[in-house]
């Protein structure tokens, strides 16, 4: 199967540039799967997970919102912040979640509520993506 180049860039660095089999993103209007030869497309990405597959193995990125630009042979993801699952420090992510929860309770009903909710959403996303990696790392189970 023809591969498509996935490039994930943030203003600060190029997070990933790799040939992959498929990219699945949570778009503004539902999940979008992109294969080689996809029609040109630009879509905003909300805070969410970006999944791609290389050699049958699924990998995950946490994206703090941005844009996806699709060409037939290349997908460019412009993210505000993007982290590969192996880059995420689980303990720090857990701590960020606790902090965000506390903030959300504190600012309930105030103007800061939406902001607190967004940071909670980001923290949860990070945890979820980090969790994915743990599953990958688990040694293969013996077939019985």
């Amino acid at each position, binding site marked *: 199967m023809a591969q498509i180049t996935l490039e994930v860039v943030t203003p600060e660095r190029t997070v990933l540039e790799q040939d992959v089999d498929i990219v699945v993103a949570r778009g503004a*209007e539902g999940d979008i799967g992109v294969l080689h030869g996809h029609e040109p497309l630009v879509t905003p990405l909300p805070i969410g997970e970006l999944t791609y597959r290389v050699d049958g193995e699924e990998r995950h990125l946490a994206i703090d919102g941005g844009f996806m630009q699709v060409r037939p042979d290349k997908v460019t993801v*412009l993210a505000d912040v993007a982290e590969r699952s192996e880059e995420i420090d689980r303990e720090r992510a857990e701590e960020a979640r606790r902090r965000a929860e506390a903030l959300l309770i504190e600012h309930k009903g105030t103007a800061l509520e939406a902001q607190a909710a967004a940071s909670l959403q980001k923290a949860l996303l990070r945890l979820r993506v980090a969790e994915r990696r743990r599953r990958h790392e688990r040694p293969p189970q013996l077939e019985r």
Partner: protein
Amino acid sequence: MASRREIRRRIRSIQNTAQITKAMQMVAASRMRRAQARVQAARPYAESITEIMADIAARPGAADHPLLTQRELRRIEIVAVGSDRGLAGAYVANLNREIARVMQRSPEPARVIAVGRRPRDFVLRTRATLVADYSGLGDHASIVDIRPVAEQAVEDYQSGEADLVYLVYTEFISTLRQQAQAVQLLPVLAPTENVVTGPWNYEPDNPGLVLQDLVPRYVEFSIYRGYLEAQASYHTAQMLAMSNATDNALEIVKDLTLEMNKARQAEITKEIAEISGGAEAIQATGT
């Protein structure tokens, strides 16, 4: 002529100064390289976002988006990106001149968001209103630190506090040339330089909705890029200023050393003259 001890003291003091300026030059050089690397690292993102912005701005329906429409000008807002410190030759003065130039074009006193202590202090001496002060961001500010600056600029434009928003910063052209310049942030001018527009489909298929997401990021990224350029320019200017200072100090040391040697020579000559004068006097009385 100054005494030899006094000259020696001055030489030592100037040598100390030269040592300090030399050290500052090295530090500035390494910071300059780091800042340039960050400008490089931002390039892929810059290319993509510029491409999308150019394409979408050219779509029918995009032109009357409020963030892209020209309004009657009453007041200009300036995002002034400079440094926290000086010691960088004409860097600060050149930036201030550019800020003042843009201020003059505002019919009502301009509003300024200052990024850096130097531009802030400058604005406080003018008639312009300082609306926000983001000084002390330092060298390592990330785009997250820049975000509130962009949010405020977009908000001020949308609420009508300002009808035109400029970014004033120093563009890094080469190690020998940095140019203070003003770039229009809002309303967004569609980029026209070396852009490839593609036959993109948009999802949602409504340029207005995509712009709502895109423009704040575009503004934010423009300011961030300006900040990186300003950093690279500042450190380059400082490196050059310090290199000149070191050269000057060493030049003075050379002059003073010469002066000191002359003074010593004069002293010796004087002593010899006195001795031979004395000897002659003794000879004259002895005979």
